[in-house]
């Protein structure tokens, strides 16, 4: 594995919305080159966790650190610039932009050329533009969307939108990826393709937090799993022991297995 990303650690984080406690004293670590699964029933606070780490929400208490930086004080854009990418639970393409442009938008933070270079069409700007365009094409091929490159993002099917989310997040060349239900709505072959992509990212040293409801998907893929219920962590550890944990079975896996 190429050099793994530094750890992103969440320590004792709580989030209150007025009287409602969405997340309570949650700790977890996202390690480079490993996929960390986060599961739990609806309303357990999983998506809130992603929003807290990505900076969309500010924790009421606790610490979130990555590569020596305190993420609590930072805006989402700054956190993204540090190398933390996220996908959204509801597919969130940039409508009005094409598929290709969505991916290239993800590369925005790598552009070095400024407004002067753009206005005078300096060589460095042209070099960057073509380099990033080529890189975007490659990313689209990697996720299987190469033939849809020119299509308007709003016209894609739900499954393809999920892959677009992933490609756009990958375009950021992140160190850490926060994936909010990336497999939701995908059929079996698509899930497998997604799993393959995520394994590839893991081998590149990226650390991932994977939130999803698809239990086999999660347990197959993840190196460690944390289980949340009603805002608290009820179990954490390697997949096998978590899967066997009676508390987890009671709270979540029992009902999840019925649905599956």
């Amino acid at each position, binding site marked *: 594995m190429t050099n793994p990303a530094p750890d992103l650690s969440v320590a004792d984080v709580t989030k209150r919305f007025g009287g409602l406690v969405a997340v309570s004293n949650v700790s977890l670590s996202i390690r480079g080159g490993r996929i960390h699964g986060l599961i739990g029933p609806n309303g357990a606070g999983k998506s809130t966790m992603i929003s807290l780490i990505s900076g969309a929400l500010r924790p009421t208490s606790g610490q979130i650190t990555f590569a020596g930086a305190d993420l609590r004080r930072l805006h989402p*854009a700054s956190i993204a610039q540090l190398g933390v990418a996220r996908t959204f639970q509801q597919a969130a393409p*940039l409508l*009005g*932009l094409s598929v290709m442009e969505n991916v290239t938008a*993800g590369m*925005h933070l790598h*552009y070095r050329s400024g407004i002067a270079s*753009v206005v005078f069409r300096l060589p460095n700007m042209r070099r960057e533009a073509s380099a990033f365009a080529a890189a975007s094409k490659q990313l689209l091929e990697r996720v299987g969307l190469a033939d849809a490159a020119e299509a308007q993002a709003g016209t894609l099917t739900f499954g393809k939108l999920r892959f677009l989310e992933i490609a756009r997040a990958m375009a950021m060349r992140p160190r850490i990826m926060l994936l909010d239900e990336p497999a939701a709505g995908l059929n079996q072959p698509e899930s497998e393709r997604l799993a393959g992509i995520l394994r590839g990212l893991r081998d590149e040293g990226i650390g991932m937090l994977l939130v999803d409801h698809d239990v086999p998907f999660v347990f197959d893929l993840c190196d460690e799993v944390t289980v949340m219920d009603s805002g608290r962590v009820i179990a954490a550890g390697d997949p096998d022991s978590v899967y066997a944990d009676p508390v987890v079975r009671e709270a979540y896996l029992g009902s999840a297995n019925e649905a599956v």
Partner: protein
Amino acid sequence: MVDFARRPVEMAVLVLIVAGLIAVPFGGSRLAVYSLTITALYAIVVISLNLLLGLAGQASFAQTTFMAIGGYGSALLTTRLRLDPWLALMLAAVGASLFACIIGVALWRLRGHYLSMATFALALGTYSFANAAAWLTNGTIGISGIPPLEIGGVTLDDALSFYILSWGCCGIVLILALLLANSHIGRAWRALATSPEIAASLGIDVPRYRLLVLVIAAVIASVSGSLYVEFTSFAGPDLYDINIVITLFLMLFVGGRGSTVGPIVGAGFLIIVPQMISGLERYQNLVFFTLLLVVILVRPSGLFGAADDTIPLRTLLPNWILLPGFRR
């Protein structure tokens, strides 16, 4: 503006416009040259509004404020401080960019309603101020006797030279807009226009890019404002009243938000067509405003705009007309 190279209709229209512009001074009347010069100066501002609104989605009503900074700036710096007109134009533009920074930072948190209303208040306040602050602006009387521009010893005080200057500037501004729109900067603007949250999650510094487009639009509007008062040798409050605020939007909407030739066509349409209809003067504002309402309601994308098609008429009518007896 994006992917202009792939829109043959707009390219063809642009070619026609350029051809027409070259032909007019040879065959056309002095009135035609004059009107087209005014068209160019307005088109410049509408292009800046197009960047601001059509590309970056910032609903700012305050472009007239920056036109006023350019106009009054040039007027005051040349008449009171006796500065060279080109220097005055540049200083006014710098002033406009500074003011845009202040406004942008002060209002950067505001979105949607807030931004529209704050900038609308700014535009109206500019007009009031121009009228009230007679010690600075000469109030309703305005400032006249503005010395003309010179290029290389040639004084630009005749119709043809200003025609060339205005359209030259318009061309430069258009090219600038196209370059920006088709770059990663333009893509960042379109991203934040669609969804500031998603844009931020991609590492795009949204406040910085909003400020950038505001400043660029302000500078362009200021330059147009300066050129306008240089052309007419006069600066007065009525150049920046609410009718102008609305007219700028009308030009953009009619031409098509986000399109390349839309601003020019929209400006031309609204300046030339009224002249062709005699007896319109008294009713001009009324007709214009009604036209804008119709465009907003029925064909929001204008002539060359993207996305929405013509809205079907039945969605415009209230339910009780179409479905008698319908009660919720």
